[in-house]
Every structure is written in C-alpha cells, then in structure tokens.
C-alpha cells in the first residue's frame, strides 16, 4: 500500500492523500473512493477513522482519496464568493477529475459523515460519474423544515425528561416552593411542550412530510439511475431522529432493496467515539462494497 500527497484544484490549493492498493490486489475495473470532510474535521476524519477505513478499502483493491475542502484542514480558503454548498460540490468534481487524470479511473464512490454525507448526496445528483455513496449520519440533507421539526422534537424530548426528573425530585419542589426556582424556564418548557404537538400537527408535519417525500423520491431517482446508496445512522446520535422521521418504522428492518441500503449501528454516537463502533462501521461498509470486487 502506498500513500501520496496531492495538491489539486484549479488553484492547486486543495490538499489530498491518495491511498493506492498493493499491486497484487489492485482491481482495474473498480471505482475509486473519495472521502469528504466531516464538518470542519480535517481529512483524517473524526478519531482518524477516515484514515483507517481508507487503508482497509485500499487493501481490498480500491484507490482511495481523502481531501480537505477549501478553508478546512490544510486546504487554502477560496478567494471567490462561491457559497460552500456550491464550492464543495465543485471541489468534489475537481477531486474526481484529478483521480481520473492521475489514475485513469472513471467511476466513483463518495463517503461522507455529517455534512460530508450531504455533499456526497448533492454531488451524486450532479455528476453521473458517481455510482455509489455511503452517507453516514447525514442530517436533514438541506431540508429546512425537516431540520426545524427534528430540532423541536429533540427540544421537546429534553424538556419532557427535565420536567419528569424534577417532578419526582424533592430538591426541585423545595426550590419551587421557596421561590428559588427559575420560573421563566419552567413556564417556557411547559408552553413549548403544549404548543409543539399543536404546531406540528397543523403546520410543520405537513411541510415536513412534503419534504420527506421529496427526499425519499430523490433517493429513489438516484437508485433508479443505478447509484448504489448506503445510509448509515448511529443509534445514539442526534441524526437517528432524522432517519426515524424520514423512514419511520422501516428503519428497524435494516433494509436493502439492492440499491438502497439502510443500516443502524447500535450503541454508536455521531462521530463513532469508540473503537468497537468504528469496527462495526467498517464491517458494514466492507460488506456493502465487497460485491463490487466480485463483479
């Protein structure tokens, strides 16, 4: 296995690392894999797991690139005014072009966590050279109402837990009765808990279900185009809420219909902050990608 540092992009200011497979296992018809930054964590990924996964995938025969978007990690900030949602997609395409030139590969799989998942999804829409995506803990995929709804659901849940804890706690009652409680905060929690289901029922849920329909339709359109999609969610991450809203009860089936696969990693948090959850994640990705080698 060999790793090489690259500077690429039209200003040669994007920094990337290509991991080449050992010659003995290099698959000549295999797609290349590109990892996209998880938020502002640089290209090694949270807990360095992008590096570990890139090396495992290279050991299977894939050429793998990890790189930093402009302004993140070692890549220089852009000097134009292109917004991030546009520049990021354009930079993934520059990465694709670079690998095409440097390694002669024409098909690509994108892997991203959190915002990286969202960018992978958007690029797959834009660029037909993308034949597969691994979307890890992607959140609302730019669906604004879904984002607001899930945030409010989580806030309501937190208020509910707080109130339920205080109700059975002697100290809380003592504070309320002696005038030492934060009454404004209590009133705010109660008002929110009463109003949220009503607002949800009459406005948010309708808008959200229209967005979710749109999102699932988008997924299916990609799947029909032949793009293989693997959606991975951490059970303990905040992102799991998005999955529950978007796919409802179907998530418990860890479903796969050939092109769209959904997997939930138990006891994992948003950034896979435990070695066992990282191992589980690797095995899910390896299992999903393995049939490509056989083909």
């Amino acid at each position: 296995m060999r790793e090489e540092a690259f500077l690429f992009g039209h200003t040669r200011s994007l920094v990337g690392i290509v991991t080449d497979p050992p010659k003995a296992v290099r698959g000549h018809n295999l797609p290349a894999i590109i990892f996209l930054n998880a938020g502002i964590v640089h290209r090694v990924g949270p807990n360095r797991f992008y590096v570990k996964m890139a090396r495992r995938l290279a050991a299977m025969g894939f050429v793998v690139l990890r790189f930093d978007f402009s302004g993140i990690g070692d890549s220089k900030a852009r000097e134009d005014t292109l917004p991030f949602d546009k520049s990021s997609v354009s930079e993934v395409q520059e990465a694709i072009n670079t690998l095409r030139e440097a390694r002669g590969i024409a098909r690509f799989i994108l892997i991203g966590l959190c915002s990286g998942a969202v960018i992978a999804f958007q690029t797959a829409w834009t660029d037909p050279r993308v034949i597969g995506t691994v979307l890890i803990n992607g959140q609302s995929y730019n669906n604004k109402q879904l984002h607001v709804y899930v945030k409010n659901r989580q806030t309501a849940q937190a208020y509910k837990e707080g109130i339920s804890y205080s109700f059975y706690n002697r100290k809380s009652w003592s504070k309320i009765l002696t005038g030492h409680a934060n009454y404004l905060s209590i009133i705010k929690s109660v008002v929110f808990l009463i109003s949220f289901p009503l607002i949800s029922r009459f406005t948010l849920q309708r808008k959200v279900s229209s967005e979710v329909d749109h999102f699932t339709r988008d997924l299916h359109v990609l799947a029909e185009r032949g793009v293989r999609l693997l959606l991975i969610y951490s059970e303990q991450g905040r992102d799991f809420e998005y999955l529950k809203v978007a796919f409802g009860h179907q998530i418990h089936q860890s479903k796969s219909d050939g092109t769209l696969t959904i997997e939930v990693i138990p006891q994992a948090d948003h950034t896979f902050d435990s070695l066992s959850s990282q191992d589980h994640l690797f095995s899910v990705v390896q299992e999903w990608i393995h049939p490509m080698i056989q083909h």
Partner: protein
Amino acid sequence: MYTGMPRGCIEPLYFGIPSKPLFGCYHIPQSGPTRDCGVVLCYPMGQEYIRSHRAFRQLAVRLADVGFPVLRFDFYGCGDSSGDCDQGEIHQWLTDLSTAVDEIRRRCGFGKICLVGLRLGGTLAAMAGATRGDIDGLVLWDAVSDGKAYLEELLAFAKRKRSQTDANQADISGFPLTPCMRTDLEHIDLLAIPKKLADNILLIESHQEAGEGRLKDQFERMGSYIDDQSFPGPQIWREEPDSSIVPVQILQAVVSWISEVYP
C-alpha cells in the same frame, strides 16, 4: 506530486524512511528575507491532535508570513503518517522528530532549529532537545511534564465517556491506549531530565498544572534562557472538534518570541 512551490505556499509531502513514511506540510516562507532558523511543529496525540490541527495550521502560516520555514508533521501512527493508532511509542516518536529535524534542515539548509510542541508534542520536543543536543529553541505549550498525571487524566476521560477499558487496551474516545504506551507515559518526567534542552525556551501555560514553576527553575539550572507566559483561557485540546478554537493570543506570543530570538 506538484513541486516547485512559490514562496508563501504549503507543500504537503511524505518523508523519512520508505518503510515508515511520515506526512508533513512544509510552509515555504513568505517573500522577504528568510530567517536563519527552521521551525518544526509537534502535535499532541489522539483526540488532542484532531482538536489542535486548525490552530497548528494557523501558527505555521503566521510563522511563514514573518519569514520562517516551517514543517508541521504527523508522528508515526498519527494523522496521515503511516502506522496504526496502536503502534505509537515514545521511542519511535523521538526518532520521527529527529527525522523531521533532518528533513527541514535538508530543505532550508539552516543549522538552527526551533521546536514548538503542544501537550505530549511539547514533551517530545523537550526530550528531543535533551537527546539530540542541537536544538536551539523550544516552545513548550502546556507540555505534559508528569506522565502519570497525564495518564490518569486520559483514563478519567475514558471513564467519563464510558469507553471500554481493560488490562490490554483502553479506548480513549476512539483512540487505543496500549500497555506499551501506558508504560511509556508512566516514565515521563520532564523535571528529571538532567541535561540542558535548548539555549532558549518559552513556556506557555494556558492551564495551571502542578510543577510549572519547578520546570522553569529546573531548565534555568541547566543553563537555558527561559521565558514563561501565561494565557488563562480555552484549552484547545479539550474543546469539541466542531468548536475548533484558534487561540490567537498564544499564536501571536509564539510568533513574537521566535521572531525576537531569531531575528
């Protein structure tokens, strides 16, 4: 790989022996007179590495802007360098640091070298100063002086995170702590180094750790010129990666001190 870089740019590169290549970013000094000293930046380890990456990049850019060639690099088993996370050892990391010093000397041709290290990176910089004897300047930024206390801190962190910890391996928030590394860390004691580390040393302190004053006394006794500066504020290695704080005051203090010592 792209070569022939203009001044003010960074060059990502692999260097060192082919069986254990190390990744680094070489910051070519900005136009203007180049200072007569190369600077090597030493990251901390594990989660602390991820959390300090942005600040280190900014520090390197600022140093290059005032004319210093800078190499910041990943130790073996860390970041983009070769090796797995469980293969790190203090002895190997000291070898890596020497390799990085040789690399920057080869690139810029200077004899003078200043090492800047945060937390365990600072400890390694200090140990390299004592071992090599040819390091001119050291910036020890909240360096770990007592390995046992550092180890306790790591294990307490793992416990808070409810990570799996056993006799063979502890899981420090997604980074393995091997028995070998535990033993290495237990033996760290900067106060016990009986040698001069460097001619000039800057001690940066952003959190109070027992023994900071004693470090200053010890290094002075060994004949180094010591400056110590305190910056109570965020400890960037403890902040969530999403906050990615850049401690501008500390970076500015480091750049000013190095610029003054190596005009």
